[in-house]
């Protein structure tokens, strides 16, 4: 009985020490965002992202299909080591319904949410004078999705949505107005 009690006391001390470590690590996680103003960090609104020093033009659609929720659920941005912005909008049906990513680096990928797992079709179209790559395939969770990519004043723009490409083309058109 005594031994069990001693062990439980040890567990309690371990929990307290581990909680201290968790807090320390959380503070360490927060420091780069607080010190390095140009690194990747979240923004409360798109307006806040646009107002951040160092960000160039951020393309935002003026048209959204029905069901897309505004404001975005996630706005991320960084100026360094290269400019990048990620805007995610939820829909009533599927999580991460629309992902807009704009970056000065062509290799920038926010993650699996904006990545194809299986590409079905890929065609180039012209949209308001830009050469736009339209891709359709399977995204995360084997759901059908479409992606449009084009270059805009030194920015590589990608928009991805779990919907047919026609809807996405309309969104892209509204971004280029």
């Amino acid at each position: 009985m005594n031994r069990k009690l001693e062990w439980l006391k040890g567990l309690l001390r371990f929990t307290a020490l581990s909680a201290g470590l968790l807090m320390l690590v959380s503070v360490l996680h927060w420091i780069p965002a607080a010190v390095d103003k140009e690194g990747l960090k979240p923004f409360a609104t798109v307006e806040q992202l646009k107002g951040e020093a160092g960000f160039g033009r951020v393309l935002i659609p003026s048209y959204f299909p029905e069901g897309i929720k505004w404001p975005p659920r996630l706005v991320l941005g960084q100026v360094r080591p290269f400019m990048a912005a990620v805007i995610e909008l939820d829909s009533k049906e599927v999580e991460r319904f629309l992902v807009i990513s704009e970056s000065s680096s062509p290799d920038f990928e926010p993650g699996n949410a904006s990545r194809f797992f299986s590409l079905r079709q890929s065609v180039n179209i012209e949209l308001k004078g830009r050469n736009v790559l339209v891709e359709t395939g399977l995204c995360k969770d084997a759901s059908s999705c479409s992606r449009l990519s084009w270059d805009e004043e030194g920015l590589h723009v990608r928009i991805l949505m779990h919907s047919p490409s026609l809807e996405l083309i309309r969104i892209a058109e509204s971004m280029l107005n």
Partner: protein
Amino acid sequence: MEKIYFFLNSYLGMYLTQSVFHSAVAAVLADCTIIAWGITSPARRQALRIWVILIPIAAFPVYQILDPERGDIYFRQDALMDTSGWLLMKLWGHLPVIVFFFIVLALTVFIFLFQELLPIIRHTAEATGGKEEGGGDDKGQDEGELPDRYDTSIIKALEGIPGGNPQVVVIDDEDLVVFSSTGRVPAVYVSTGLIDELDGEQLRGAIAHEIAHIRRTRRPVLTFLFVFRVLMFFNPVALFEFRRAVQDEEEICDDEAVRSTGDPIALSSALEKFLESHETGEEQGNVRGIEDYSHDMLLRKRISRLTAEGTLNADKEAGRFSLPVFILFTLAMNFFIV
């Protein structure tokens, strides 16, 4: 910087950085475990250190299999800690932290090569060379040259020590030297200086400690651990923890020696003689480095441990089942450190 960013987001970059950070967290949690349960048993402490080295080797691939989106910026934002945020952070506006990180890794590789790998290769080459020459019977050579009293002292010291009576080789050297070699024919090497300096009980304690080393090589925990430590050659925490595990091994062998002889004071006074001889060397102006200093520190720690009353059997039960708690908590916490 753009290239560094993409390197840090590649699997290789993530493995390299996360394994170091995961080791650091595991090392801190291992010490938390030791403090929380008041673990003084060197065997228990060593078991914790072994896991500090093992966890980062396999953790990253397993985490990625469990959640392939773990490296994404979405996950990083919600993580407990994003290591790339730290590494890409610029100090004083222009010097990225990753430069210091790479310097530390490079120093670790350098230390690993010159302090661990090359001495092992050299030692192995020398041992192989010796066998090829066909000589090898040092005992025979020394027996012919040395007075019989050395053999008598050794025979008396070995009486009653369990461990299959390994070969004991007397080396004609006035310094205090005792070490053991393992392999097919394990042997304990004792210098004439040591036999002259120590009394019978102290010599018995010193030899019993070496026999404990030989006995423990039948379960070559440290050899296996070294193989894993080699895989983590770049990891400064693994380097540090491996050395601490080796220090624990010394204390484990102290405990086994005391169990064989029943005399902790004799072993501690033998260690004191080693310490004195080191300090005399220092007074005589011999060059001493950090390694000698840390060696003396370890000797002092072992002496005070052996002389402290009841230390050897103090916590046979303390910290029992603490290892699974430590492993589970470390694995869970490290999952959210990307």
